[in-house]
C-alpha cells in the first residue's frame, strides 16, 4: 500500500512545478551555505597560514642572528635585542610563540561561534594574547549571522516542508477527490499518514542527495559522528515538520488557513521560542559585567603592587641562592628574576578573580542547555555547533589547550633564564619543533540536541495521532 501511495504521490508531485521549484530552492540553499562557509573558512585558513609564515621567517632570521652572534660575526645594540637571551625569545614584551587554530572540515556544518573566537594565541612567558580576524570583522556582518548549513536546516528546510505539505489533505478536499479517497477500503488515517510519508521520503531523499556533495566537498565523512549526526538531524527535522503540517491538515481547515497555521507554527517554534529562550536565559542568569571584571583585575593589580615587598621577601627566603640587591644595584636580570619568580603566585591570585566570572557564564550555558528542549531550532543549532566543533565549549577547550602550551613554553624559558643559559642552536631546533597549532582531542560529542529533536518529533507525532483520532471519529 505504501509503495503504491508513494508511486502515486511521486508521479503527482513530479507534475507540479512547485515541487521542482522547492527542490531547486533546496539545492540552492545547500549550495550557497557551502559556498558561504567555504569562503569564511578559506579566509580563516589564509589568515592563520600568514601568521605561521611570518613566525617562521622571524624564527629563521633570529636563529641566523643567534648563530652569527655566537661566531662573533654580528653585534646587537643591547641585551633586549639578543636572540640568545631567553627573555627576548621566550617573550615578555616581544618574542613568544604563535599557536594557531586551523579550520577543520567539520566547521562547514555550522560556523557557530567561530567568527567570534580567536584564530591564534601569542604565547609569552607572562601570559597569552588572543589574535584573530574577529578584531577587524564588521560588527554589522556579525550581527546578521552566517548563511551556513545550521541556518538552512533550522530555518529554511522547515519552510520547504510547509510549502510542500500545507495542502496535503485540504487540496484533496478542495479538488473534490477527498470523498473518493475515503471511499477506498483503507483507513483514512493510514491514507493520510502514507501521503505525508511519501512526501517526507521525497524531500528526505532530495536533502540527503544534496548533503552528499556537501560532505564530499567539505571533507566530512558521511559515516563519521559529525556526518551521521547531521543526517539524523536533517531527517528528524523533516519528520517533525511533516508531522506538524499533517496535524494541521487533519484539523480540517482550507488550504489558506492551513498555510497560515503552518507558518504560524513555524514562526512560534522556529523563530519566537528561541528568542524568548534567549531572553529568559539572559534574565535568569545574566552574563556578569566585563567592565566590573576589568576593574576587579585592576584592583588586584594594585593589591599585588602593594604586597610586592612582602612577597619578594618570601621569594628571596625561599631562594637563598639569589642575592637581593637594592634598586640602584639591580640590572635587567634581577628585574626579570623577580618578575618571573613572583608570577606563579600572581597567576593564582588572578585566577581566583576569573573563576566567579567563568562560573557565572557556565551557569548561563547550563540554563541555555536546559532550554534547548523548547524549540527544534535551538536543538538543531546547538547540536550542529557541537558536531562542527564551533560551539562555546569547543572554544573553551581550545583555549585551555593553548594555556597548557603556554605553561610549557613559559616553564621552558623560565628555566633557561633562571639557570642563566642561552638559547643555543639545539634550543632553536626545539622551538621549531614546538607545536604551532592548537588541536584538541575530538571530544565525545553530547547528543542532547538530537535527543531534544527526537522528543519534539515524538510530541508532534503524538499530537498528530490525537488529532487524527478525534477527526476520524467525527
Amino acid at each position, binding site marked *: 500500500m505504501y509503495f503504491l501511495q508513494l508511486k502515486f504521490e511521486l508521479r503527482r508531485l513530479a507534475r507540479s512545478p512547485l515541487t521542482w521549484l522547492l527542490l531547486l530552492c533546496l539545492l540552492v540553499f545547500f549550495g550557497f551555505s557551502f559556498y558561504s562557509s567555504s569562503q569564511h573558512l578559506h579566509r580563516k585558513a589564509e589568515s592563520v597560514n600568514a601568521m605561521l609564515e611570518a613566525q617562521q621567517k622571524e624564527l629563521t632570521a633570529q636563529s641566523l642572528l643567534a648563530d652569527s652572534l655566537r661566531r662573533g660575526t654580528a653585534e646587537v645594540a643591547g641585551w633586549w635585542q639578543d636572540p640568545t637571551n631567553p627573555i627576548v625569545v621566550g617573550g615578555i614584551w616581544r618574542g613568544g610563540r604563535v599557536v594557531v587554530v586551523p579550520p577543520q572540515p567539520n566547521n562547514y556544518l555550522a560556523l557557530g561561534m567561530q567568527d567570534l573566537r580567536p584564530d591564534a594565541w601569542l604565547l609569552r612567558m607572562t601570559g597569552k594574547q588572543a589574535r584573530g580576524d574577529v578584531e577587524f570583522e564588521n560588527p554589522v556582518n556579525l*550581527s546578521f549571522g552566517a548563511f551556513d548549513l545550521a541556518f538552512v536546516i533550522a530555518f529554511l528546510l522547515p519552510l520547504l516542508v510547509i510549502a510542500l505539505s500545507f495542502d496535503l489533505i485540504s487540496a484533496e478536499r478542495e479538488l473534490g477527490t477527498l470523498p473518493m479517497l475515503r471511499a477506498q477500503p483503507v483507513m483514512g488515517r493510514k491514507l493520510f499518514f502514507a501521503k505525508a510519508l511519501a512526501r517526507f521520503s521525497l524531500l528526505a531523499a532530495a536533502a540527503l542527495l544534496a548533503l552528499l556533495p556537501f560532505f564530499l566537498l567539505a571533507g566530512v565523512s558521511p559515516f563519521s559522528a559529525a556526518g551521521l549526526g547531521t543526517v539524523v538531524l536533517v531527517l528528524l527535522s523533516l519528520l517533525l515538520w511533516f508531522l506538524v503540517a499533517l496535524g494541521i491538515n487533519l484539523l480540517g481547515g482550507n488550504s489558506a488557513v492551513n498555510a497560515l497555521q503552518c507558518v504560524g507554527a513555524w514562526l512560534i517554534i522556529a523563530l519566537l521560542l528561541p*528568542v524568548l529562550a534567549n531572553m529568559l*536565559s539572559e534574565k535568569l542568569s545574566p552574563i556578569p559585567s566585563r567592565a566590573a571584571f576589568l576593574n576587579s583585575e585592576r584592583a588586584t593589580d594594585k593589591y599585588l603592587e602593594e604586597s610586592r615587598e612582602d612577597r619578594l621577601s618570601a621569594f628571596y627566603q625561599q631562594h637563598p641562592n639569589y642575592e637581593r640587591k637594592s634598586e640602584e644595584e639591580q640590572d635587567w636580570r634581577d628585574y626579570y628574576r623577580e618578575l618571573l619568580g613572583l608570577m606563579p603566585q600572581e597567576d593564582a591570585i588572578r585566577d581566583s578573580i576569573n573563576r566567579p566570572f567563568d562560573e557565572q557564564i557556565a551557569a548561563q550555558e547550563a540554563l541555555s542547555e536546559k532550554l534547548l528542549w523548547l524549540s527544534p531550532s535551538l536543538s538543531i543549532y546547538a547540536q550542529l555547533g557541537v558536531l562542527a566543533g564551533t560551539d562555546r565549549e569547543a572554544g573553551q577547550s581550545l583555549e585551555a589547550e593553548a594555556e597548557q602550551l603556554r605553561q610549557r613554553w613559559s616553564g621552558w624559558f623560565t628555566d633557561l633564564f633562571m639557570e642563566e643559559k642561552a638559547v643555543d642552536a639545539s634550543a632553536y631546533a626545539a622551538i621549531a619543533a614546538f607545536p604551532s597549532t592548537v588541536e584538541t582531542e575530538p571530544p565525545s560529542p553530547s547528543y542532547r540536541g538530537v535527543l531534544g529533536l527526537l522528543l519534539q518529533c515524538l510530541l508532534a507525532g503524538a499530537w498528530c495521532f490525537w488529532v487524527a483520532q478525534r477527526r476520524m471519529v467525527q
Partner: protein
Amino acid sequence: MLLTIARHTIRGTVREGRFRVLSIALLLLFLCALYGTYDYYASLRTQHAQASEMARGQWENQGDKNPHSAAHYGTYVFKPIFPLAYFDRGVDSYTGNTLFLEAHRSNQAKYALAQDQVATTRLGVLTPAFVLTLLFPLFILTLGFGVAATERQNGNLRMMLAQGLRPATLFWGNVLGLWALVLLLVLPFFILGGLGLVFAGAPGDYWWRYLFICLFYVLYFGCFIHLALLISAWAGRVNTALVGVLSLWVLVCLVMPRFTVDAARQLAPTPSWQQYQMALQKDLKEGVDGHDPASVYTQRLKEQTLAEHGVDSVHQLPFNWDGFIMQKGEEHETLVYEKQRQKLAEIYKRQLSIHQIMGFTSPYLLLKGVSERLAATDVATYFSFLSAAEKYRIQLVGELNGDLRDNFKYGDWDGTRGQEFYSNNSTFSFSPRPLTEILPELLSPFLVLLGWLVVTGLGGLFFYQRLRPF
C-alpha cells in the same frame, strides 16, 4: 466611493479571527520585548556608570608614579549605552565595549557581549525593533494577502466592476483601508515604545530620534501594505497569494540579509590580522620611537632640535628631552594608528554601502540600518566612540609627557607625581553625534524607501488594472 471601499476593507479585515489573535499576540510580544530590553539597558547603564567611576578612581589613586610610568599604567574607558538601546540593540553586542588606553599603543576595543554568550543567542534577541522590523511586516502581509484575491474568488469583484467601479478606485480604497488600519494598530506600539525614553529620562534629542524612527517605520510598513496588495492582485487566488507573500517575507527578511553579508565580505574584504599588523608595524618603524634612542628618526630629530636651540647636548635643552621625545613618538604612533583605523573604516563604509545597495532588494536591510543609526547602536557610533577614546588617549598621554618635558630634568626617571596631579588630568566623556548631523546621511535610505513605496504602489495599481473577475 473611495471611503466606502476603505471602510469595507477595514471591516473585512477586522472581522477575520486571525486579525484579533495576531494583533494581541504581537502586542504581548512587544510588551515582553520592551520589558526585557529596558531591563537590559538599565543594568548595562548602571554597570557602565559604576565601572567608569571605578576606573577613574583607580587612575587618581594609582599611587606616586613618574608621569610616563602612569601613561604605561593606563586607564580603561567604557562605551556608554544610549537611551534608545532598549529599543534597538543594533550591533552593540558585537562591538567591544571596553578600551584600554595606554602610552604608545592604540588598542582594539575588547569584550563584545556576544563572545561571552552561548551560540544559540545568535538566533536572535527579542527587542521592540525585532518585533517591528521582522514580525510586523509579516502581520501586514497576512492581513493584506487576501484583500484582492478574496474579492475575486468570492465573486464580489465581478459585481463591483459591473456597477462601474474602476479598478484604480478599488486599489486606492484598499490602500487607504489598510493604511488606516495599520496606522491605528501601530500607534499603541509607538506610544509604548516611547515609554522607555520616559523611564530613561532621555533628553530631547532622543525623542526626536525616536520620532524619526517611527516615521521610517511608517514608510517601511507602507511598502509591505503595497506589496501585500500587489501580490494579492497578481496571484488572483487566495492560496497563491498567501504562498507569494510568505515567500517574499522569507526572501526579504531572512535570506537577503545573510546573503548581503556574504556579498559585502566578498566585495570589500576586511584585512586579516596579519595584514593589518604588518602594515601597522611597517608604518611605525618609519618614525620616531620614544623608547628607542638609536632609531634613525630619533637621531635625526635630535640633531634638528639641538640645531634649533643652538646647543650640542640634550642636557642643555631648556626642556626635558625624554618627555619631548616621548611625545614626538606618541604623535607619530597616533598618526599611524589613525591611518590604519581610517583604512578599516573605509572598508566598513564600502561594506555598508553594499548593504544599502542591497536595500533595493530588501527594505528590511534599509530599515535595520536606519533604526540602528538613530538609536546610536550602529557601527558609525562605535567608530565615533573609538575616535573619541583615541583623542582622549592622545590628550591624556600629552598631559603626562608635557609634565615630564616641562617639569622634570633630563634623565630624572625617579621623579613622581601623586594623587593631586592625576586627579587634575582630563576625564573622558562621549556622546553620539547629534541628530542634525545624522539626518543628511538618512536622506539616501529615505529616498530608497520612498522609491520602494512608490514602485510597489504603482505595481499594485498595475496588477489591479489587470485584475479580471473569476
